[in-house]
């Protein structure tokens, strides 16, 4: 008798979930087809069926700390087979969206990132910052260097501005993530529904390393997701490794620049087109574009009886598209030496990069941290890997 829980549905939470992408969640009638067809779901207490009934009953405390929402890789087989069109895949995504909104502090950012009506504010913040700088350095002009070429540093100085700004942003985002991760793990530990699994494993670091090695780098789960996941597999790989490559390039550029500052060596940008890092950057760009095309094409062709994209999806895709396209065109316009267009495009590039990284902990891209941690946690408690039958 003491085990019986007093249930108090949270009506507002249901409405929030519906707004965050789970609009069809009430249609579910618990037939369990979704859990049966899910290729990744463990046999004990599988997902997404239980999440659907918890969501229908507004059981916020069960959903907030649910580990399983991160085990899901959104292949969509559940929504494909759902006889009611309840779109369980969208609910799992909505739960993650709610997590992005609520896990990291400050909470106001979560709110700003949650609906399109706040987009102007999100754009305005970096736009104003960079416009102020542009005004100060060049009075909104489009200056050229002594050779008559476009040179970004003339408008957006690296030492004084770009690197400090983005370094601070990176440090801030890292700290915000650190707190968010601790918060996330706390919700897992506090969850009334303890994740049931097999054999608990080792320590968190080792399990996280296993996740990175066995799953993330290989994209193994994308392959074992049901249905035809070619677009997602190659698309995500293109974008993922494209960004890793660009990260390496950026790290090199930053390190080289500051090394030059302190040693007097001239290692400033722009790099020669034959510089191996430049080549890497351009190859990465091509990979990114291919990946983006694949995932965008896929998302645009989704059957909307079964899948509904929401703001979180379009925001991230949109921002990455702008980053990649403005980056590519910045280079092309610089090489073609059209300052009048080059600088505005570069300005947009900076704004979009800021939007991608500064707001990272509250966007869909936060999954790169949260899911990794969650998968590591899952191995630690033994919920993953699925026992071989």
């Amino acid at each position: 008798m003491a085990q019986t829980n007093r249930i108090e549905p949270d009506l507002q939470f249901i409405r929030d979930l519906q707004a965050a992408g789970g609009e069809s969640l009430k249609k579910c009638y618990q037939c369990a087809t979704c859990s049966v067809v899910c290729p990744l779901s463990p046999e004990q207490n599988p997902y997404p069926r239980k999440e659907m009934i918890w969501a229908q009953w507004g059981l916020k405390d069960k959903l907030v700390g649910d580990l399983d929402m991160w085990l899901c890789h959104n292949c969509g087989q559940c929504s494909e087979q759902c006889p009611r069109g309840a779109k369980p895949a969208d609910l799992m995504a909505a739960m993650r969206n709610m997590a992005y909104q609520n896990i990291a502090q400050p909470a106001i950012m979560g709110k700003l990132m949650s609906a399109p009506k706040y987009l102007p504010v999100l754009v305005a913040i970096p736009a104003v910052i960079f416009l102020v700088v542009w005004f100060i350095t060049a009075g909104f002009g489009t200056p050229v260097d002594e050779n008559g070429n476009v040179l970004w540093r003339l408008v957006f100085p690296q030492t004084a501005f770009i690197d400090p700004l983005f370094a601070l942003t990176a440090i801030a985002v890292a700290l915000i993530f650190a707190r968010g991760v601790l918060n996330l793990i706390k919700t897992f530990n506090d969850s009334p529904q303890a994740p049931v699994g097999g054999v608990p494993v080792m320590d968190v670091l080792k399990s996280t390393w296993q996740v990175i090695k066995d799953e993330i780098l290989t994209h193994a789960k994308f392959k074992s997701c049901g249905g035809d996941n070619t677009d997602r597999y190659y698309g995500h790989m293109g974008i993922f490794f494209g960004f890793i490559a660009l990260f390496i390039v950026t790290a090199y550029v930053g390190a080289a620049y500051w090394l030059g500052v302190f040693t007097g060596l001239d290692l400033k940008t722009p790099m020669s087109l034959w510089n191996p890092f430049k080549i890497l950057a351009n190859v990465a760009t091509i990979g990114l574009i291919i990946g983006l095309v694949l995932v965008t094409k896929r998302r645009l062709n989704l059957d909307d009886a079964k899948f509904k994209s929401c703001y979180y999806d379009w925001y991230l895709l949109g921002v990455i598209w702008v980053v990649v396209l403005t980056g590519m065109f910045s280079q092309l316009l610089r090489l073609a030496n059209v300052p009048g267009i080059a600088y505005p495009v570069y300005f947009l590039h900076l704004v979009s990069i800021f939007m991608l990284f500064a707001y990272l902990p509250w966007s869909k891209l936060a999954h790169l941290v949260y899911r990794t941690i969650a998968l590591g946690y899952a191995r630690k408690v033994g919920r993953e890997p699925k026992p071989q039958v």
Partner: protein
Amino acid sequence: MSNKIGVYICEGCDIGPQLNAGQLAEFVQSEYGGTCPVVKTAPVLCSQEGKAMIQADVDAEAVDRVVVCACSPRVKWDVFRFGDKAVVERVNLREQCAWSYTRPETDETAEGEVPETLRMMAQDYIRMGIVKSQKYQKAEAEIPEVTKTILVLGGGNTGLTAALGGAKLGYDVVLVEKEAQLGGFAAKMYKQVPYSYPYTQAVTPDVDQKINAVTAHEKIRVLTNATLEKLEGAPGMYTAVVKNGNGEENIPVGSVVLATGWKPFDPTARVVVADQTACEAQDSEAVVETPAVEKGENVLEPLGYGKFTNVITNVDMELMAKKGDLLRPSDGRPVQSVAFIQCAGQRSSEEGHLPYCSSVCCMVSLKQAGYLREKNENGKAFIIYKDMIVPGVQELYYKAAQDDPGIFLTKGEVAEVAEDGDGGIIVTAKDTLLGEDIEIKVDLLVLATGMVPTTLADPVVNLSYRQGPAFPDLQLFNGFADSNYICFPYETRRTGIYSAGCVHQPMLMGAAEDDAAGAVLKAIQCLESINRGMAVHPRSGDISFPKFNMVRCTQCKRCTEECPFGALDDDEKGTPKPNPTRCRRCGTCMGACPERVISFDEYNVDMIASMIKENEVPDDIDEGGPRVIVFVCENDAYPALDMAAFQGKKWSPYVRFIPVRCLGSINTIWIADAMSKGIDGVLLLGCKYGDDYQCHFAKGSELCNRRMENIAETLGRLQLEPERVQQKQVAIDDYDLIPQMIEEFMNHIIDDIGANPYKGF
């Protein structure tokens, strides 16, 4: 007796190649030449030429009876019609001879010749056809004075719809309602489950408009505060004795639509059903006893009803919603949360519970959950169910109701209902979809209780029939005036009375309106058939009536008690008094009468007995094979037989099928005649009986079975094995079982019992 019989033998459809029509024609001419002046064959009798040939003979008055030896009587009946001057008899040479023939090993006919056993079979069938045609007398229709008024009992949604329907089609309607106002429960409902596209929102009932239309209609006479005291007479000529505030009035009516509806489930009621075995009631008291209602413990008390103030039923909830706001009974505060427990007091074999599902309560709970949500944006409604029963298109309503964020559904077993200090109700449920036992606290608990029909413990129709005032055997349907057969949904056990709405089956208002339309159309069909002397269902268009030779009647009362439709009343002496318009022409009375007093012009004891005796039965079972007569009921068994032959099934060539109207019409003298002729066995194929009966005359096959058990004794005294007579139940889709039934019976006769000792006498 006619002696101008024309015999026409078809050669189409495998009959010609297998049977040699010319040979058969010769046989007819040699044995029946006197009565059959015309014997012809044709390559395809149902063709224009074939038909013209027969018509020419009829027109020339060469024949006045036509025996068509071709396919089954169930096909081409529209072709083989030759006007009023000729009566057509069909001999089934195709399905029953050509298609189903198996040649036995003992048949040593030479190649190229028609096998002996096949020839004998075809000849027997032709013999029987000719004899039947000879004995046939054309019936004359008896046309009574018919009152073309429809009595509608019950002024709720169903009754109002039926009344309007009948009036719109030009019939006078008398609507009798026992309350002071029309509208029934529909007038007390806040909203109803939708019955039209898009099926997603509950709608306001339009019963007020119906009431206005009915009261304004010149063809409808409305009597409120009125009850039907007695219904005397017979369909087409009933007298309804109606009592209202002004006293009693005798109103002539023709047919009746029963739409008296339902009553809410009473958790303290216990229904006691009397034994209804017709045969055992020997006295002249009512054969049909209405169940009585006794008081017992409140079976809903464990769910808090009658114990806690804030536990009500779905009926209480509806009335409250109609009045205005949803308020807690205990303190009048607005309801913020409500829980519904489905199947309360239903779908259970426990004492005092209803064993059935009332069909509407799941949808009603969804609707009432919507009431709370409509009146309170933050209201929460919980539905705990065993199953959500939302038949057919109502699934769309369920889907739409589910989409409301404030309605929570789960399967579960209610373990406990308790009351909190502030009057709130705490419901504990186990085995829920949430994966754990749960406890919820709500302001109001609604028990989704069921409905019981008004006919449960009350005759309602109050017939002045010898068999009693009520419908018989309603305990088969838990008291609902149902007929348990998909083929005739509005029929009851009393001709001329058609049930609709919730007295018929639990149903939604929209379905009840469809039901009302069907029932009133049946009521009209009844009147428009009786005024031509015709039966309604299932022998639609039949003008023959059972005729009684009262001189030989011994007042044994078997016919009056066994008639499934109560068509026979009796006088003080016990002499049966037929009421022809109540009759469905099944012939159960004919089968019942030990003195063979009853007969139809077109179907009688002598006719079938003559057919049996006309068969050629070999004296030696080893030389000529056994002979078995199979009586086949025309409703399910004969079609199954045809289908079996059509599907290529085969069986013994030693059986002879004789179609009968119903196994209930089989008189035991036919068994005796068969035995004395030397026939080795009698197999009876008819519709199912029992709880899931399919007998189209309700009781015919069951009575036949009982009679056959009784004659086992008689057979024993004659040194005949009782197993020589067996009855099998055949559903219309059991065609694949027929060969097996015949084979088992034949093997039993040949291997176990052996030849009829009376052969060759």
